[in-house]
């Protein structure tokens, strides 16, 4: 046996031909903090991968600054191994990540390496498709308008701030206001939201969405908790987690959202729908600021580099809904921004607000008042609007925003009034009732058809006779009742067709009255 191995090795060595050729190289002149300054390599391209030959093996670096005499490179591997005098060589390739369906259910780093201990992702890595981390956003010509809803399972959002497939909707708020919970609800809800019939799917109905959760600068414990939750709820079967935790170098945190977008684009290009959550872009901006300062780029406002807007705009522009000629796939983006003391006028929040197609604004005051999700309906907006709503939701929720706005105004006014007329009191009560109905626990997304019937009952005055304190209990009882008695005649038709037909509406009214009698 050993003889055979030796013979094989001999044959390999005998067949080895090596003709040294003149190669372009660079010499590391400075190294530290994950950055290397390399003299030479005058023909290096921007964003090109450079291989640095160190005493403990090759280390990859990303050419970031191209200057007259040297290049500034971001070290992607073991930065401690890079020493002054090491040689750097061009590779002629730009940064890319292996993509494929095998990634589903896995936790990977921004370079596509597995982090979950479940072994190799791709059996034959050579034949795997690779997507570039930096890619141009789809042009106007290949895009289609956003009109298919992406239900989050959060009543307040699906009813008043609808998100469409291919949209970019910002989730913004202070720390501990439930930003990640909304994004996770959106991921969990995809399990129950796809239409089951192939006919509806063929007509461009709601297909299963592949989700990508990008954790940037999060605590490892938080990422582990999220992965566990997704696994327990069965959502990991259609989710990919790209993680660059707080312990990862700034370079990895900077690359993570681009890796998430590259993975999402794989599914979009394949004609599927994908959702990517960037949690969060504030930390991403901080990582990029760190790298830029180390690369000696001139600092601008709040010490961020001048191209921080372009960084986020080129990332978020990659979210798109492609037309049928290009497969009809979509990539929806839910970036998250953390504000400090509710200051939405800071640099990064205003940048991302202006890039996205709307924002869900979460307020700490509402959160502590017990209104959860703590969505400030007045400041939240979706620029896609009701175009990305099903007919059923449009029918029941069209008056909701107005009713709540009137309620807030009257409630503020009523604080100073001792005696109110009957219609004002009625409006305030309705507003309180609606606020109560819109409350829901986190990690419990409500299926779209259940949202429709609950809001229908509240907004049409069917619950006016119920005390506000009992509204939540009635909602639970009513939904259970519908599930048991009217699953096939009310809930299923709404879920399948997305419409609230007259016959179904009549049955719904009847069911509400029956339930109230119980």
């Amino acid at each position, binding site marked *: 046996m050993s003889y055979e191995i030796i013979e094989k090795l001999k044959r390999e060595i005998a067949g080895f031909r*090596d003709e040294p*050729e*003149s*190669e*372009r*190289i660079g*010499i590391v002149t400075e190294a530290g903090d994950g950055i290397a300054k390399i003299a*030479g390599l005058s023909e290096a391209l921007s964003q090109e991968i450079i291989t640095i030959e160190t005493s403990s093996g090759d280390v990859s670096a990303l050419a970031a600054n191209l200057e007259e005499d040297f290049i500034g490179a971001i070290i992607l591997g073991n930065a401690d191994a890079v020493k002054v005098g090491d040689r750097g060589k061009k590779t002629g390739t730009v940064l890319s990540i292996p993509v494929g369906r095998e990634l589903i259910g896995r936790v990977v780093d921004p370079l596509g390496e597995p982090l979950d201990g479940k072994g190799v992702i791709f059996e034959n890595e050579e034949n795997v498709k690779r997507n570039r981390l930096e890619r141009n956003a789809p042009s106007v010509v290949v895009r289609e308008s956003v009109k298919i809803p992406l239900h989050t399972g959060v009543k307040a959002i699906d009813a008043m701030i609808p998100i469409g497939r291919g949209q970019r909707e910002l989730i913004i708020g202070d720390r501990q206001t439930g930003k990640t919970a909304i994004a996770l609800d959106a991921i969990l809800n995809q399990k129950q939201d796809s239409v089951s019939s192939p006919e509806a799917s063929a007509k461009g109905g709601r297909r299963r969405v592949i989700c990508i959760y990008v954790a940037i600068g999060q605590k490892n414990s938080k990422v582990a908790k999220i992965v566990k939750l997704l696994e327990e709820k069965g959502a990991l079967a259609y989710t990919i987690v790209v993680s660059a935790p707080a312990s990862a170098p700034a370079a990895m945190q900077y690359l993570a959202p681009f890796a998430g977008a590259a993975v999402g684009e794989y599914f979009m290009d394949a004609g599927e729908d994908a959702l990517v959550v960037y949690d969060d872009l504030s930390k991403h901006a901080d990582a990029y600021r760190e790298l830029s300062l180390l690369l000696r780029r001139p600092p601008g406002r709040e010490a961020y580099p001048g191209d921080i807007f372009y960084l986020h705009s080129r990332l978020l522009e990659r979210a798109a809904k492609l037309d049928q000629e290009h497969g009809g796939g979509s990539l929806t983006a839910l970036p998250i921004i953390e504000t400090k003391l509710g200051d939405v006028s800071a640099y990064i929040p205003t940048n991302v607000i202006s890039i996205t197609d709307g924002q869900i604004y979460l307020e700490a005051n509402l959160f502590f008042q017990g209104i959860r999700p703590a969505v400030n309906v007045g400041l939240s907006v979706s620029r896609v609007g009701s175009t990305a709503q099903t007919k059923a939701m449009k029918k029941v929720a069209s008056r909701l925003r107005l009713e709540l706005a009137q309620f807030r105004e009257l409630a503020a006014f009523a604080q100073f009034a001792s005696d109110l007329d009957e219609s004002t009191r009625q409006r305030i009560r309705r507003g309180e009732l609606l606020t109560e109905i819109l409350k829901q626990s986190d990690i419990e997304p409500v299926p779209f058809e259940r949202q429709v019937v609950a809001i229908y009952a509240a907004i049409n005055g069917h619950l006016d006779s119920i005390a506000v304190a009992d509204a939540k209990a009635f909602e639970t009882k009513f939904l259970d009742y519908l599930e048991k008695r009217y699953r096939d005649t009310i809930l299923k038709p709404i879920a399948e067709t997305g419409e609230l037909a007259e016959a179904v509406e009549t049955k719904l009214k009847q069911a509400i009255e029956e339930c109230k009698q119980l």
Partner: protein
Amino acid sequence: MRYAPSQYAEAFTAVVPKAPASRRAELTQRFLRSVRKNGDLSRIRQIVAAIERRLVTERGGAWIRLEFARPQPEHAVAGLRGRFGAHDHIEVAVRPELIAGVRITRDNETELDYSLARKLKKLFTR
């Protein structure tokens, strides 16, 4: 503003080599004083290296670095030196990690690697 070594080198080579031989020592001293005044004395090695490189380039030569795995007999090095131009600057270094053979670098930009280390690396990454 902090000047780069290449800027010091540019200033030095533009003035000192073209000045009469009698003034060169004085100009060099003034140059060193301005380096100290700018707080760049800690980078004097880089500045001198940049000046050397610039002088070689201006003469039409190249900066050649010959690296061997072990110290070489003088006649072997001289044989190699003879293969380069008169204006080229040749420096010799010993790098044991090359295992055997020679590596030639021109102007820190182009490399010709005849070392055993490279061959082995290529063999094992095939």
